[in-house]
Each structure stands twice: as structure tokens, then as C-alpha cells.
């Protein structure tokens, strides 16, 4: 391990690390908390829960988000659910099992201690959310309901229809707004953080732009928490919200914070396929659908061709001519294999010519079998002994509607096709980024006083995240981890007086931000920001997407470099910096993506193995499964930035004391 990376994992047994640490971490007394200021960038699950919790403790908190309200953070869009080891179903779940599933699901590239802590606090999240009024789905007996998600064999996912993220975020947001009301939190909506300020090696504040007036502002904080989400939009097309970006994390990176595992991105298997060039984003169909839907393509090439040419309909293909390829390849987990496995399997079938839509990039997600199964159960419940097929189908459809109605409606709205009548068409799309700012056990980056929470850090999901675990991690970080771990740092800062924002470090940082803005506006080239963003997205998708290889990655690196150069000489950003200018906002974000893209490819190129979402074509088994290399690559790749887009790699070795690492098998 390089000396620059100290993960600060507490001593002791895995089961006791967190309990002991929590009870011995230095505290800050209430009077001192009032004079300690904390800046939080982001109001998603991680940011909102951290802000509410820290303000309740008595810290002075400022929260920033670029949307017009904290409630609109991208977490709002999460659909399927949140995991917790409650074992309410009595089906064998436990803290250890959730821990084990997460490490295995992440293909043995996450830290044991962090993941165990996550599993430990997961149950408290459900308690906290219910107490703050989150209306999770319930059974008729009045108790909470659970569903299954990929990569696990227990039912531990809590949900609120297909709007779990919305309900959890509104819960955290109401806690945040309560603190805004008491004056403990000051909210800065429509503000974008554009740099972090460091003084004598410590993080001391940020530069933010008021997006309405265009003015740059300096804000001091004893600590800064980046809860700014993931960077999936580097691909242009993704399931992320349009505004999701890497800028906050990237500016921190350029100020010295290491960026870990940038090439670990998650491609989600069930998204609505691309419909045309106008496409601005992709829409996820929740993974919970894989619970009840069966995924297939035709077994015969001629049927696939006929489908693509519109000569036959999916329902014309006989049962024996269908290839339920996930059930075939992975009998133990079937349609519920982890996302990376499911996505690659879809790509494999489509690349082999079995794709079912006009672009050849789609597979079916079919609810017919389960509709009938549900219909029969309903018939039994109602004491109908000889229901007709129509009755069974109608009752089954009603059950499916109750479970997934909003998702089915969304599908129909977007595609114009009725999914109750025809199988859905789906294809993998970029969804989540496991990589992010490197943090230690305290969630602190290698810059003292600068923290990263939620999707913005790299910490818990290794090379692949299991479904329903991001919401869990965001809320764990914000509600239950940072309120304790921040004490380790702030207890030593109680003598630090608020530093004047006239300090030269603030002046200098603001000047740099201003220069970048001026430069973007002065290029006055001929191509729009989106033009460059789309080009970048294609490069990364083709070379650093579901499958990667050495030659492709090398080409991608030089292509991204060339594109970046062209961007800085030919981009066209209209208007001025005085006032709302959405093109200028986008331009700044794309400029950062153009640097990140290069680092992603570099990281992918350096990692000569396949693991989780990172599939290097050179490293696979004869059956086409990912071939990990634990001997040489069982580490976190943490990249340090140097001026002019140069990087140095630092390695944090991963140590598995409690889990026997094995080839990940879902067969």
C-alpha cells in the first residue's frame, strides 16, 4: 500500500469494528458544534440525510444543489427499492449474508470493513425512514412488504411501488427542510460548486456559482462533504438525470483528492432501447421486473430476422423456439443474476444476431407466464374452480398492474407499445458508477476535511453494485456513518476560527473559476456543447462500455484527447456569465467529462483482468465468463492528478480475512 493511502480501518473483529469505533471516536461538545461549519454539496439521499443529521447534532450546515429545490436531486428517480438485513421474511437473511452478497456481487473488489458496517446499519435506515413518514409498501397485516432483487436469494428489498427513491428522498428532504426552518441549515438551491478551496493542505471551503445571477461566491467550511452523485453521464446517454455530472468530484480530484476505480461503471440490463438520434436520455425499467418477467430471444436466427423486419410478432414464436438464455446459462439464479452478468449476456445474444428490434439491440422481457401464475392464484383465492383462460389472464393482469403499474405506464408512454399485451423490449444502458473519490473508513478523501458520500465515493460496491444497494449506501453514509466519523476530524478543529473568504486561497480559486468561464465564453466556435458530449459518449460506450480491449482503449485515449482539444478551440457557448445560462453550465460539465473519460480508459487499460462491470475481452473463461486475477489486481486503483492531465496510480490492497474469495458463480 502506498503511504498516501491510509484506509484507517479500525482494529478488531469484523463484527466489532464499527461498534467499538463508534464508541471511542472523539466527540465534539455541543457548544463547540455551534461554531463548526460544514458545507454539503448535494441534496440527494446522501447529502440530505447528512445535512439533517449533522444539523440536528448542532453543527452549522450549508447545503448546495444545482436544481431549484433540494427535493429534485437525482435520487428522486430511483425506482425499485432499498435493501436491509431485517430478515422480516424469515428466509435466512442476516447482516453477514447482506455483507457477503455485497462483497461477492462486487466481485471481491470492495473493502470488507466498510461493507460490513453498511450491512450493520442497513436495518436502522428502514426504522428511520418509517419514523419520518416514508410510506413503504405493506402487506394486509399491516407489516412491511419485501421483494427480490438481482444477485441475492433472499427477499430483503423494501419498496414504495416503483418510486422508492422518491419516497426516501422526500423523507430525508423533509428532515432537511425542518432544519432549514430552524435556521441550522442554510440552503443554496440553484447553486453549482465549481471548486474546492484548500489552505495548508486542508479543505476549507468552496467556490460556487449562483446559477440565477451568475455571481461567483466564496464559502468557508471547517469540513466539506461532497454528496454530488455519480458520473454516468460521461456516456451522454444514461439513465441518470440530465444534470448529473462529475464536476464537484473532478474539481476535488484536480485539487489532490484521489479518484478510485474510475472504470467501474454499471450497465443496467433492463432499460428501454434507444429510439433515434434525438435521444436525450435512457429510461430504466426497474430491476424488480426481472423478479416476475422472463428474459428471452428467439432460438432461431431466422425468427430474429423476421421480428426485426416486422414480419412476425413476438407471440408468434412458439415456446420451444424461445431461448431463455439467463435461465439456460445460470440455472441457480436464472433471471436474477447480477446486473453485469445479465447485461453481458444480452449483449452476447444481440451481437450473435438474435436481437429483436429494428436496430438489433433489444431482448424481450416477458410477463405472460407470471401473469397466468398470478391469475391462477387469484382464482384460487376467490374459490373459482374452473376459471376461463380470459378470466385468469384478466386477474393476473390486475396483479401485475398493482405491482408495476407505473412502470408499465411509463413504458407505454415512451414506446407507444402496450406491455400488458406484448413483451417489453429492453437493452442494457449506463446506470451507475461504482468508481468515485477515494475515501477512508471515515469517508474522508486523502485531503483532510474533504469527505465524499453516496455515489460520489468509491467505497462499498467494488466492481459491481447489487440492485437496491445505492439507496442503502447513500442513507447509511448520511444518517449513520458521517455523524460519528466526522468527529474524528472536527474534534481537532474546534480551535480553528472561521477563515475569512478574503484569504488568498479563496481569491485565487475564484479567479481560476472565473478564467475557465471566460475562456468557455470566448471560444465562440462552431459546434454546440451537446455535439461534443455525444461524441465523447460514443467513444466511451464503444471502447469502455460493456466490453473492453487493449487496442480499443488505447484508441479511445487518443480519441478523447483529440476531442478535448477540439472542444477547447471550437465549442460554441452563447450568452454571457451574468445570469441564467444553461449552455454555459453544460459546457463546464462536459469539459470535466472530457478529462474524466481519458482517466476511465486509462484505468480500464491498466486493469488486466475482468471483474464485475469491467470486462476485458482478453480475460475470459472458455464459457465467456469474466476471469479475475486476484494475484495481481486485488486492489483499489486510486489515481492522483498532476497538471496537464497526467496521473499516477496508487494501489490500496484489499484484504479478505472473513470471506474466502472464489470465482463468482451464479450457475
Amino acid at each position: 500500500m502506498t503511504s498516501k493511502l491510509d484506509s484507517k480501518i479500525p482494529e478488531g473483529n469484523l463484527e466489532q469494528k464499527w461498534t467499538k469505533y463508534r464508541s471511542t471516536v472523539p466527540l465534539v461538545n455541543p457548544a463547540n458544534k455551534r461554531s463548526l461549519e460544514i458545507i454539503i454539496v448535494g441534496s440527494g439521499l446522501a447529502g440530505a440525510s447528512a445535512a439533517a443529521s449533522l444539523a440536528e447534532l448542532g453543527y452549522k450546515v450549508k447545503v448546495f444543489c444545482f436544481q431549484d429545490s433540494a427535493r429534485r436531486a437525482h435520487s428522486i428517480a430511483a425506482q425499485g427499492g432499498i435493501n436491509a438485513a431485517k430478515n422480516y421474511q424469515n428466509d435466512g437473511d442476516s447482516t453477514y449474508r447482506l455483507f457477503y452478497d455485497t462483497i461477492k456481487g462486487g466481485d471481491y473488489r470492495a473493502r470488507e470493513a466498510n461493507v460490513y458496517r453498511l450491512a450493520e446499519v442497513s436495518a436502522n435506515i428502514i426504522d428511520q425512514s418509517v419514523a419520518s413518514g416514508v410510506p413503504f409498501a405493506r402487506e394486509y397485516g399491516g407489516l412491511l412488504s419485501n421483494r427480490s432483487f438481482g444477485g441475492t436469494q433472499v427477499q430483503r428489498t423494501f419498496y414504495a411501488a416503483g418510486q422508492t427513491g422518491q419516497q426516501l428522498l422526500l423523507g430525508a428532504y423533509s428532515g432537511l427542510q425542518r432544519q432549514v426552518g430552524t435556521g441550522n441549515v442554510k440552503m443554496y438551491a440553484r447553486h453549482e460548486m465549481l471548486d474546492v478551496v484548500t489552505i495548508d493542505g486542508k479543505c476549507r471551503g468552496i467556490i460556487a456559482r449562483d446559477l440565477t445571477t451568475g455571481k461567483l461566491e466564496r464559502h468557508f467550511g471547517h469540513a466539506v462533504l461532497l454528496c454530488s452523485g455519480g458520473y454516468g453521464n460521461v456516456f451522454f446517454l444514461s439513465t441518470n438525470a440530465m444534470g448529473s455530472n462529475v464536476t464537484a468530484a473532478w474539481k476535488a480530484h484536480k485539487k489532490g483528492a484521489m479518484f478510485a476505480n474510475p472504470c467501474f461503471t454499471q450497465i443496467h440490463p433492463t432499460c428501454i432501447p434507444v429510439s433515434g438520434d434525438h435521444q436525450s436520455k435512457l429510461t430504466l425499467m426497474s430491476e424488480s421486473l426481472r423478479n416476475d418477467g422472463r428474459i428471452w430471444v428467439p432460438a432461431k436466427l431466422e425468427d430474429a430476422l423476421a421480428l426485426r423486419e416486422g414480419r412476425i410478432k413476438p407471440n408468434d414464436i412458439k415456446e420451444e423456439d424461445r431461448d431463455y438464455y439467463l435461465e439456460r446459462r445460470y440455472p441457480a439464479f436464472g433471471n436474477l443474476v447480477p446486473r453485469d452478468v445479465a447485461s453481458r449476456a444480452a449483449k452476447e445474444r444481440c451481437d450473435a444476431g438474435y436481437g429483436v428490434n429494428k436496430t438489433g439491440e433489444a431482448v424481450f422481457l416477458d410477463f405472460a407466464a407470471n401473469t397466468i401464475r398470478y391469475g391462477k392464484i387469484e382464482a384460487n383465492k376467490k374459490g373459482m374452480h374452473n376459471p376461463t383462460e380470459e378470466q385468469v389472464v384478466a386477474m393476473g393482469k390486475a396483479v401485475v398492474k398493482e405491482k408495476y403499474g407505473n412502470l408499465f405506464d411509463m413504458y407505454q408512454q415512451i414506446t407507444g407499445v402496450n406491455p400488458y399485451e406484448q413483451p417489453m423490449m429492453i437493452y442494457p444502458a449506463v446506470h451507475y458508477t461504482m468508481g468515485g473519490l477515494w475515501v477512508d473508513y471515515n469517508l474522508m478523501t486523502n485531503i483532510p476535511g474533504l469527505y465524499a458520500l453516496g455515489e460520489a465515493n468509491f467505497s462499498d460496491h467494488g466492481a459491481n453494485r447489487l440492485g437496491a444497494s445505492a439507496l442503502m449506501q447513500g442513507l447509511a453514509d448520511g444518517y449513520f456513518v458521517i455523524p460519528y466519523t466526522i468527529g474524528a476530524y472536527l474534534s481537532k478543529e474546534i480551535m480553528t476560527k472561521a477563515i475569512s473568504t478574503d484569504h488568498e486561497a479563496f481569491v485565487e480559486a475564484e479567479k481560476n473559476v472565473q478564467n475557465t468561464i471566460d475562456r468557455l465564453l470566448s471560444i465562440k466556435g462552431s459546434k454546440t456543447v451537446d455535439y461534443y458530449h455525444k461524441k465523447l459518449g460514443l467513444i466511451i460506450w464503444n471502447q469502455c462500455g460493456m466490453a473492453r480491449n487493449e487496442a480499443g482503449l488505447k484508441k479511445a485515449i487518443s480519441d478523447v484527447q483529440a476531442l478535448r482539444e477540439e472542444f477547447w478551440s471550437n465549442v460554441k457557448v452563447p450568452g454571457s456569465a451574468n445570469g441564467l445560462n444553461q449552455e454555459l453550465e453544460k459546457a463546464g460539465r462536459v469539459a470535466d467529462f472530457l478529462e474524466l473519460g481519458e482517466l476511465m480508459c486509462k484505468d480500464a487499460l491498466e486493469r488486466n483482468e475482468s471483474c464485475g462491470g469491467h470486462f476485458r475481452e482478453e480475460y475470459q473463461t472458455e464459457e465467456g465468463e469474466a476471469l479475475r486475477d486476484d494475484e495481481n489486481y486485488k486492489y483499489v486503483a486510486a489515481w492522483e492528478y498532476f497538471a496537464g492531465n497526467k496521473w499516477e496510480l496508487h494501489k490500496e490492497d484489499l484484504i479478505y480475512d472473513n470471506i474466502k474469495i472464489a470465482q463468482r458463480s451464479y450457475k
Partner: protein
Amino acid sequence: MEKNLNLNLKVWRQKNANDKGKFEEYKVNNISTDMSFLEMFDVLNDRLVTEDKEPIAFDHDCREGICGSCSMFINGQPHGPKQGVTTCQLHMRSFNDGDTIVVEPWRATAFPVIKDLVVDRSAFDRIISAGGFISINTGNAQDANAIPIPKDDADEAFAAAACIGCGACVAACKNASAMLFVSAKVSQFALLPQGQPERYQRVSEMVAQMDLEGFGACTNTGACSAECPKGISLTHIARMNRDFLVAGMSTNEK
């Protein structure tokens, strides 16, 4: 099947809060029926930038109908002609070739225009800050299954909580009343056991803040619920009115 449309757009342009603002007309051609309404705006904005003109500012983020950012008043209706969808979910197949489409921002005193189609809805956040929460600090919660909640109550609380805070209800109302938005939050908590301790205080404080923000009075026209993309029901307003009455009586007693 996919088709292409040629359309005339009349879009409200306003430089900033102080500018008077006016409509401007744009012709857009070859718009695929598979596009979303906002993707049509992307195409237009791309063209405006290339022509050295200022693109049209509008709020949007998730483009999935859940964040509540998008907010266009289309042909006299908030979020356009289709029931139960937000602007971002509206697809061009809801329009016909040759249509003229008029696009304005939400209009309400409590939602001042920032630029073009972007308005300031921070009044909603202040209403939530006034009482739209359950006062529980992190770490105080008991086991989530300790209090069973009848499924029907949980489902109805969820239906109220599905409000995305878009403000279409205000834009639809001739009085620019925020009753539907406020009642959805009041109702969600009133239906849950966790919301009981602060039930009446909550409604008083949220309503007081609502009045302070300059939203209009409710005259029961029902336009809000009819235009709400999430189908938030008028029964929540009725429930809030009842709770508000009770709250008023209990304050008198003190």
C-alpha cells in the same frame, strides 16, 4: 408508427425577472413522433445556438416524470394536453402535423419568472420548512414493524406522497392556490400513526406559510387535480380543511 411533424411554436421569452417578456415564433420541422416534448426543445435550442441566438431556458432534470422540475404551460394547460403526464413525458405523438403550440411558464405571483420558461418555486420549500415533516431526529426510531399500519392507509398516504412538487396545480388554478400541493403533504402525515403527534400544529403552520407566500384562496374549481400529473385527489383538500378546522378549535381552547 413513427412519423415526422412540422410545427409552429409560440414560446414565451423573458430575459429576466424585470423584463416584460413576449412571445416569439419558431418553425420546427421534421420532428419525430417518437421524440419527447423536451427533446423537441433540445432540437430547437441546438438550432438557435448554431444561429447565434439565445436558446430557450427551461427547467428539467430527470425526464422521467418524477423530479418535478419540468414546468411548461402548453396550449393553455400545465404539462400539456395529455392527462397524467409531466412535460418531459409528453411525446410528440400527442400532436399533429401543422399544429401551432403555445408554450408559457407557470403564471402565479408566488412563482416569479426567472427567465423564459423558468420560474422560482422556492415558496413550496418554505411551506415544507414550516411544518411538512415529522420531528424525529436521526437515531431515535423504533423498529419499523413495531407499529403495523393498515395497508389501505399506507396506500393512501403513498398516493398523497406521490406529489412531485411541480406546481402545475398552482398554474392550473385561476386563483393560483397551492391547496392541492399543501394538502397532499398534510394528508400523507395525517394518515400515518407517525404523523399524529404534530397533526394539527402541522396544518396550521403550513397553511399560514402558504398564505404568507401569496398563493390565492381555494374556490373548489377542481382544476388543480384535473391537471395534476400525479392524479393527486381533491379528497386531500377536504381532509386538510377538516384538520384545519379542528386545529383552529383547539387553539381557541388554549
